[in-house]
């Protein structure tokens, strides 16, 4: 089930809202959240729901044990236990294929299983909980129902944000619902839907057409079009989902952390990672980088720590060499910015240079990320450096077919994110407008128009999953 599908918006969500609002007592509230989330996950992942259940139970027990015994062995064991399903479902086939295990062998078939939706997200959430309890940053929750409701809460279950227990525990314990918060939630939800249905899906059709071509059909023009389309798609799809998740959370009285902060306005890769998938970056910082020593180690160790973190970031996104390369690619630029370029890096932080530095680096990174194989990365790269070659501006008919006038307009709207300069992302800005006597009308009109557009787009469209579901 995806948030933009009519089955969620017009069937599941009304029922969920009605259930939550009827269950005003705290215990009933946990139960209704848990029931709805279990149903949501069942209709998303089917019988693999046991993986979520395992994660909930193990992390709940681990939290109590590490608080009681403060034993590193228990911490380590529980983290390994939590990671085992993630490694099995996500990475075992990749490792097996990498070492030459045939996919049609018994072992190959055993490992070739469907990936439980959102496993990367809820596993990381569970690990963060256990580690925070171990560090004394929060108390272990003895209330299994409340804890289960937190970990399985459906707005952020499948594709984030990665929410730490300490960030939302108060909202879970008390019913912090209000009219203002609910209205704010509607705004973010509608905003997210618009980003997904209007911009991301349209840009995605163009990107898919480009990346589905054979390597011999990739021209310079296809690379430019495809990479820009995917840059727009991935941002609007993922940030749109985060907006929806945040909006839904607010409707249920839960405030989630922001996950994106206009990343394409960044001036450096370092800044980019403070604005892109913020909750993931923070997770790796707090639970991998800092335990490895953080900044308090010698240079060589520091470099390797950074590379490890970005390698892990790449691998977290998927079990393929392209993701590994993408992670290392970003890690190298982080190192370059911090330690090799020194003062020169500050020049690149001038706003205008982002068009010749940050954006090209990020966009090329998305080519690596989106490519289905290293061969495709190479094909795109070669075409990119051949603007004067034969057929450099040939565009395959399937790409032209995908580049409908409406899709091109949506892509153009998406490209505005490259040029935007603002203190806040648009969704946050619209929310802040609600607090202003004059500006709130703009937000209200935005909601009303958005509701009409979303209804038309959602009711008339076919199923279109979120990109980050595969993680």
């Amino acid at each position, binding site marked *: *089930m995806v948030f933009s*599908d*009519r*089955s*969620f*918006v*017009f*069937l*599941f*969500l*009304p029922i969920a*809202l009605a259930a939550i609002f009827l269950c005003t007592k705290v215990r009933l509230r946990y139960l209704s959240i848990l029931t709805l989330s279990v149903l949501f996950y*069942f*209709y*998303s*992942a*089917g019988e693999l729901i046991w993986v979520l259940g395992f994660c909930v139970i193990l992390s709940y027990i681990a939290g109590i044990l590490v608080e009681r015994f403060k034993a590193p062995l228990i911490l380590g064991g529980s983290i390994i236990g939590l990671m085992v399903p993630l490694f099995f479902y996500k990475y075992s086939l990749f490792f097996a294929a990498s070492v030459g295990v045939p996919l049609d062998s018994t072992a190959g078939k055993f490992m070739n299983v469907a990936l439980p939706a959102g496993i990367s997200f809820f596993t990381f959430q569970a690990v963060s909980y256990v580690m925070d309890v171990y560090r004394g940053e929060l108390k272990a929750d003895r209330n299994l129902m409340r804890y289960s409701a937190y970990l399985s809460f459906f707005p952020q279950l499948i594709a984030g944000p990665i929410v730490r227990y300490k960030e939302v525990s108060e909202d879970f314990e008390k019913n912090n619902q209000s*009219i*203002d918060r*609910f*209205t704010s939630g*509607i705004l973010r939800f509608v905003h997210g839907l618009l980003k997904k249905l209007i911009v991301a899906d349209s840009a995605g059709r163009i990107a898919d057409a480009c990346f589905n071509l054979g390597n011999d059909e990739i021209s310079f023009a296809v690379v430019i079009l495809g990479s820009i389309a995917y840059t727009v798609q991935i941002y609007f799809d993922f940030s749109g989902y985060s907006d929806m998740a945040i909006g839904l959370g607010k409707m249920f009285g839960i405030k989630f952390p922001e996950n994106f902060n206009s990343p394409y306005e960044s001036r450096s890769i370092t800044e980019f990672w403070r604005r892109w998938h913020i909750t993931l970056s923070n997770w790796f910082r707090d639970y991998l980088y800092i335990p490895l020593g953080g900044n308090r180690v010698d240079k060589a160790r520091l470099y390797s720590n950074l590379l490890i973190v970005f390698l892990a970031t790449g691998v977290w996104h998927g079990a393929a060499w392209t993701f590994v390369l993408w992670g290392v690619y970003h890690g190298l630029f982080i190192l370059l910015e911090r330690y090799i370029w020194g003062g020169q890096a500050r020049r690149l932080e001038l706003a205008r240079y982002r068009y010749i530095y940050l954006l090209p680096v990020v966009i090329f990174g998305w080519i690596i990320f989106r490519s289905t194989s290293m061969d495709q990365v190479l094909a795109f790269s070669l075409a990119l450096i051949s603007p004067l070659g034969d057929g450099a501006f040939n565009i*395959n*008919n*399937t790409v*032209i*077919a*995908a580049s*409908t*006038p*409406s899709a091109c*307009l949506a892509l153009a709207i998406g490209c505005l994110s490259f040029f935007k300069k603002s203190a806040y992302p648009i969704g946050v800005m619209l929310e802040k407008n*609600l607090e202003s006597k004059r500006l*709130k009308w703009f937000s*209200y009109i935005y*909601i*009303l128009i958005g*509701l009409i557009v979303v*209804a*038309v*787009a*959602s*009711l*008339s469209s076919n*199923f279109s999953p979120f990109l980050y579901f595969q993680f």
Partner: protein
Amino acid sequence: MNKFIIIIFLVWLASPISALLIFDRNKSIGFNRVKDFDKVSEKLLTTNGVKYLSDGLFERSKATSLSIKLKNGVLFYLFSHVDTDKLISGDDGWLYYKPQFMLSDCDAEHYKRQLQVAGNSAALFAQIADTVDIKVVYSVSPNKARVHPEGISKSVLAYANCHTENEPLFDTYLKNRIPSLVLHHEAMQRDDIPSDNYYFFKNNTHWNILGYSKAMLQLKEKLETGFLEQNNSILDISDSLYELRNQATTKNMLLLEVLEKGPVLKPDIFSPEVDSNLWPIEFEGNALVVHDSFYAFYKNTDLVFGDKAKLINNNIKSQRALIIGEIEKKPNLVVFNSVERFAINRFATEWGARGAYFKNILKMNLDKAKKECVYDENQASVNLIPFNKQGIYNNETVSGLKDNPRFALNIPKTMNTTCLNLTLHSPRPTTIDILFTPLSGQVDVVSYELGRFLSIPVQRGSNSIDLILPKGLESNQIHIRPTIQTTETLKEFKILFGRLP
């Protein structure tokens, strides 16, 4: 104001379901009938349960059809470009029906075999019908892209598959096999009409009055004068006016009421006041015309076909029983008309020697053969030659070394219509296939298979089957293939050749 927004939002959430309760439910959205909606409680226990439930509910809601209409309206009127599962916009306002491209086969060898099967099957149907004095004509209405490729843009070409490459193959292979074939696109030459006139509507998958009139003139010529070279048709459009017409394509596929200007013939060539000698099409006896939506374009079919022709739309499933009934009445002429994109399938199946209509034709043949064929009483049974060592024929017993063994037999050189008498004793009900000489002259096993065979039912016990063979088989070899297993035998198996007096 926040409360107002919340109320609006909640009403919005409930609107599709509310529309279901307040307004009539959709039975279809355009051409697409809403899916059956049953066993909901079972489906809800599966991972697709919610989607199944929501699809079932929302397809029926007026909110959905309104949304589709709004979306298509924006795309059509604001962006002048639609790309749905059925329609794709080309250049200059041309709208093409996607299936006409997407059904085309890019495996050339596979496509040629499909054409062979279709052509052979239709040809055999016509040949067997001819033995009972029924003339069968096949006509093909063109895909719009064939007649008006000027609107095909690169976006359209993305879906084109190999339709351009396949067009000449389609013509050649079918013409070589079906003598009584009318390809209507041959009557629609672009140069014959001014550049601002068209044979098809831009926003409709069908031809307009110009296209239809050209097709009917061509059909008339073929039926009245035989299948000779076509003369130029009589058609004056120099002073053509335009009339507005609601387009069924956009109405049914985009849910938009689009009016389009289409030509009006001056003079209206179907009006008997203009030229009472021109129409209706003349043919002997009575006729059955089995067609699809293309021949259904012009409602006053009596003018064109006269009152001795019965027109039945094959697209309407409930009408198919009528077709069988009309064939049983033994019309003098049967015309099968199909649009190009569905022709291969129709010729190979329902309108060919494998289809339901052929069973009636075959029965007429068998009955006539039983009554009229004569045989030389002193004739010995024809020798069956096992083909590829698949069976044994010995002492009037057929047995198989493989399932469904095949045997060859040579048709004598004697002239005139040849009859075949087959007697046998079968342990159970089964069939016997008779495979005719390949039209292409190839003699490999596969070529005999490609659509040129018929199946005759065999009862349990003794059987005596008489068949009038198609003309022109003298000195050729046909194959017999009983549907038996290797352990089974057919006894008292004899074949005789005879003739019609």
